[in-house]
């Protein structure tokens, strides 16, 4: 079990950080260790989700075997990771060394309280459980993939052979859980309910951390208060069963929760970054634009409608930016960079 937990930590923390280092180091605002860690973690997870979505949807269309996904994803991910690490060594090794040398910034009192509240939420996710009927679909699909090596070939509710709607196959988040389960050796049910939610809460916190950096720059006091307020709003987010806050704490193992509490908030954060750059007359480069594509594809992994929602958010931001700043090129590019994700929606509409 200890070996499994160590692998899980590597899969949930180390792997995303390795995938996201390039994106963190290519951001001129990232100078400290904490910022580097959270930026790498979030960007890396987004890239991993996007890569997995492409491989998994391709695999689901070609085979019913889960091992088919593994055989394609592991080499693809290894190749991308190797390329990203080479890029870090060639282009960003000096910045990496300087970032790691920098002393961590002081954390404000409210920042500590906010962080502790998030730690509390992570700990509670191990010991408390929320009964949700949708798990009968999502967790069972993950368990079925690991136990019987089949994907979407059986009705998860009763186990009888079926032809699944492409609606579910185009957003194979349960297969991501199955991948984590297979890699760590943790039984899918235990992984989904006990050993996975903490990582989603951490990702959500990381996005809020990045958002606070975007909004308040180096003002640690304001950032701390922001994180404290955000943590209180999340903890008390049970005003109905629909908000992202509720999904995060109640059903973190479902793709919908990842979309609502991690991917879409990250897209908002990315939009703030891009709009700020446009406002300040700074270049919006490949880094920011490619991250739009990765985030939109990652959203498609989480939910069929994810690609459509990301397109709606980016389009709304592009429209407002074009009107406020009277610039068209970047807003148009923003929308264009989202279109690859819309391919999954079109695929779903065509295949049903």
């Amino acid at each position: 079990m200890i070996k499994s937990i160590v692998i899980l930590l590597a899969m949930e923390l180390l792997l995303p950080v390795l995938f996201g280092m390039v994106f963190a180091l290519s951001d001129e605002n990232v100078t400290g260790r904490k910022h580097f860690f959270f930026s790498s973690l979030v960007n890396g997870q987004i890239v991993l989700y996007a890569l997995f979505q492409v491989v998994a949807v391709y695999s689901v269309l070609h085979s019913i075997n889960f091992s088919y996904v593994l055989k394609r994803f592991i080499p693809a991910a290894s190749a991308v990771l190797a390329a990203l690490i080479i890029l870090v060594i060639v282009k960003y090794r000096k910045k990496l060394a300087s970032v790691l040398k920098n002393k961590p910034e002081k954390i404000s009192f409210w920042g500590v309280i906010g962080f502790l509240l998030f730690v509390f939420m992570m700990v509670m996710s191990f010991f408390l459980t929320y009964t949700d009927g949708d798990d009968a679909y999502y967790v069972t699909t993950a368990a079925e993939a690991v136990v019987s090596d089949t994907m979407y070939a059986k009705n998860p509710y009763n186990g009888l052979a079926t032809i699944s709607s492409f609606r579910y196959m185009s957003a194979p988040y349960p297969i991501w859980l199955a991948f984590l389960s297979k890699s760590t050796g943790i039984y899918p049910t235990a992984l989904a309910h006990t050993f996975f939610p903490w990582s989603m809460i951490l990702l959500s916190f990381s996005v809020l951390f990045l958002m606070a950096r975007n909004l308040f720059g180096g003002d640690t006091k304001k950032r701390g208060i922001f994180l404290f307020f955000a943590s209180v709003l999340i903890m008390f987010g049970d005003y109905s069963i629909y908000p992202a806050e509720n999904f995060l704490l109640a059903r973190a193992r479902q793709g919908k929760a990842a979309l609502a509490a991690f991917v879409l908030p990250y897209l908002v954060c990315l939009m703030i970054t891009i709009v700020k750059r446009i406002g300040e007359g700074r270049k919006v480069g490949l880094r920011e634009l490619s991250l739009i594509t990765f985030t939109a594809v990652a959203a498609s992994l989480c939910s069929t409608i994810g690609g459509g929602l990301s397109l709606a958010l980016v389009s709304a931001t592009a429209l407002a930016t074009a009107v406020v700043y009277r610039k068209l090129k970047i807003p148009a590019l923003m929308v264009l960079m989202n279109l690859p994700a819309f391919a999954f929606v079109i695929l779903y509409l065509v295949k049903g």
Partner: protein
Amino acid sequence: MFSQILLIIKEYMGEGLIAVIFVLSLFYLAVTEKDRAKKVCFLYVPVIVIIFFLCPVSYRIYAKIAEGVTYYRLLWLIPVTPVIAYSAVKICTRFKGLKQNLCVLAFAALFAVSGRLMYSNMYMVKAQNIYHMPVQVIDLCDALHAEGREVMVLMPYEFQQFVRQYDPNICMPYGREYMMNMFVGEDLLRDAVMAEDKDPELVGRLATERGCHYIVISSLEDFPEEPWNYEEFMNIDGYKVYRIIEAGPNMWALDD
């Protein structure tokens, strides 16, 4: 159509205090925010999304692509928590020292009152094991599991959503569809099991027909006598398990 959309908003926002705080935050940002980038992301975009959301045409298009019941997901595009937290930070940091801390505490209390603590939700309970499954489900599944084969088990209503999460090798003649009110009135076996006056002969015949190796039922709702073609096999955690005597035509026999 518009009333349907308003109902979705009402259900999404619960008692509504958080919606009031959010709208006040938008007004506050509209009046005080000087940074145009923040205005775009925290004011104009939410307003565009709200207008889009309220438009019946959007609802129609969404309902055609996805399902109308998930229309609320468009509201996830509005960064409610960041907007509220950002506005509150702006207000609090207008004060200094003790006044600032008191202001932070006051806002935190307001946010707590406006919502409901997730951990006080009646469905949020202490986990009984690392699978976060009812212990009876685990005991039953472990007892009925057949290595390398799929077993068909008629499970009680209260366990149907858990069984296959824990052991996908256990199949059921009907599962969570029943809880979702799908196919109601179309499943004779389910109707026979759920009937107040259970007919053991009818249940046994239908279960055999559907290839059930076992029938599990709460001891409190037990059959008046053993179902036809089934014998009492074991008692687990207050649930009685009946085992098939002679396998039906399209099923493997337990003695194989």
